């Protein structure tokens, strides 16, 4: 009898527990598939990448719900077929507003230690707050973003599954970061060549590669490592006057940093025209011509940017090499679309 009483009491107590159908936290570790020679992307210890977070971030990335007038998604300015860059100098934001900078590629963005072209944001986990709230980009307050997402039953369910909570200032940018970390590209002809496939690069591309890494050109002194970037900030002499956008100086308040911008990855660079921080160089020919000229001669220009004396054939070879950094499997990867 006493046992029966306990059973009934137990049933009664559990029946009184309020059910929370939304609470369904699931944490399936994301299995990184890393190209040879690639380390794991940078992750915050408090935010491990999970399958659920990546899926939620992907949905957010392609959803215009995060723009003021529901007209733009992240993918509006980061097109998969352009290696998640955009083919205009400055991408128009809501109401056609223009900012100051060209949309960067998101290729291997999970390896970038300081985000934005001036390095103002120290981790990918919070970077997407910049375009979401920027008046010239998506122009949405995070209060409104949170309200919109939590008013959507599907999104609420997905946030509960990925984070065990509703959408918040904490988890919206982190879900987007989880997806962006998976945008890993290391399957170009250059990669196959370095892994032993001697047929992967044409003779012209091989000549261009030798030029690229030569002491004479020293392109590889900045565009170094597995991701073709040493992640420093350099004034490459693009302009004599940087006008409204002083680059890294905007962050450091150090006049020595005027005109310095983050060295970008060159992976998939043939897909990411136009080039430079402001999209002012239309194609790779213009980029090579800029460096061959030795820049514009800005007083703070890096000393490695100097006249190179490249002839026309050498310039073509360099471009052929840069084109061999295109990873078609990456841009066609349906997991990213």
């Amino acid at each position, binding site marked *: 009898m006493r046992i029966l009483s306990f059973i009934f009491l137990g049933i009664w107590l559990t029946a009184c527990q309020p059910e929370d159908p939304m609470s369904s936290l699931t944490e399936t570790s994301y299995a990184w598939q890393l190209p040879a020679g690639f380390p794991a992307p940078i992750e915050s210890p*408090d935010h491990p990448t999970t399958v659920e977070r990546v899926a939620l971030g992907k949905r957010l990335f392609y959803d215009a719900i995060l723009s003021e007038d529901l007209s733009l998604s992240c993918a509006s300015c980061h097109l998969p077929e352009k290696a998640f860059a955009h083919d205009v100098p400055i991408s128009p934001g809501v109401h056609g507003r223009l900012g100051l900078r060209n949309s960067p590629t998101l290729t291997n963005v999970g390896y970038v230690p300081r985000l*934005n072209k*001036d390095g*103002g*944001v*120290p*981790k990918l*986990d*919070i970077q997407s*707050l*910049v375009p979401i*709230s*920027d008046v010239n980009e998506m122009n949405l*307050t*995070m*209060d*409104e973003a949170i309200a919109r997402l939590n008013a959507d039953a599907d999104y609420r369910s997905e946030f509960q599954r990925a984070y065990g909570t509703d959408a*918040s*200032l*904490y988890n919206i*940018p*982190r879900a987007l970061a989880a997806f962006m970390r998976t945008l890993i590209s290391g399957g170009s002809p250059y990669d196959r060549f370095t892994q032993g496939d001697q047929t992967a690069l044409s003779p012209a591309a091989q000549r261009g590669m030798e030029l690229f890494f030569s002491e004479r050109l020293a392109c590889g002194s900045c565009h170094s490592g597995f991701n073709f970037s040493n992640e420093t900030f350099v004034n490459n002499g693009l302009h004599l006057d940087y006008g409204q956008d*002083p680059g890294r*100086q*905007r*962050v*450091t*308040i150090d006049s020595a940093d005027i005109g310095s911008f983050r060295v970008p990855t060159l992976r998939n660079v043939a897909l990411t025209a136009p080039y430079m921080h402001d999209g002012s160089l239309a194609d790779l020919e213009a980029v090579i011509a800029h460096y061959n000229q030795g820049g514009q001669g800005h007083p703070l220009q890096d000393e490695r940017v100097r006249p190179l004396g490249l002839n026309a054939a050498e310039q073509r070879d360099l471009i052929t090499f840069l084109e061999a950094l295109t990873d078609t499997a990456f841009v066609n990867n349906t997991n990213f679309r």
Partner: protein
Amino acid sequence: MWKQSMLLALLGSALLLTFSACEDDPVDRKDSDVALSFEYEVDGQDFNYEQVYDINGVATKFYAVQFYLGGMEFKPSSGDAVSVSDYLLVKPGMTTDALVTLDKGDYDQLNFFIGVAPEDNDQTENDFTSRPADDPLAPQPSDQPQMHWNWNTGYIFFRIDGEVDTDGDGTPETAMEYHVGTNNFRTDISLNLSKEIRDDATMLSIGLDVAKLFNGLDLATESISHTGDFPQRARTFADNWPAAISLK
């Protein structure tokens, strides 16, 4: 009968003892709960957001005058300084709850800084998205002036928004914005306290003369600094804080 009387007397005594034991004896406290209040003024005039002030000859109206205060430290005449880890987001007329309990006695100095310490400003560990809503370093509600830059590491240490008169008609019509931050502009303040703290509760009143913040700045031509765009203006502005803050 005698026994009954004795029993009643004993019971009565026991009850008396019990109740008297439950009463709180007034005990002299040896410490004091210390809170802060902030009184803004503009060159001797009371501060309010409706009034137009003359700042160095320029008609000026304010919409927001607020700043972060951190690193508080009370230095007694003898013994170790007492630190307060909390940050305050100071706004006009603000009065805090008790921030710290100090031993009663003589105190010489109140030190603090205007701004946010580098370890809290760099956003690498506890960034602003990780903080609870009631933390002054959490993002402000969207209908309030924001105190952080999301495109750049860290917080706006001091934020002043308003309008200034640039056409000389005495009516402010041009936006005035001083949003100053980054680690270089964190400003140390040391106030001569010279106070004997002897009450159980102590309210210290800190004054801010907003006019003094613009010494050396011509708001008719220098109405904007977001730090990086006009760093020299930001420098002048930040350097004016120690003279603008006082203990009332």
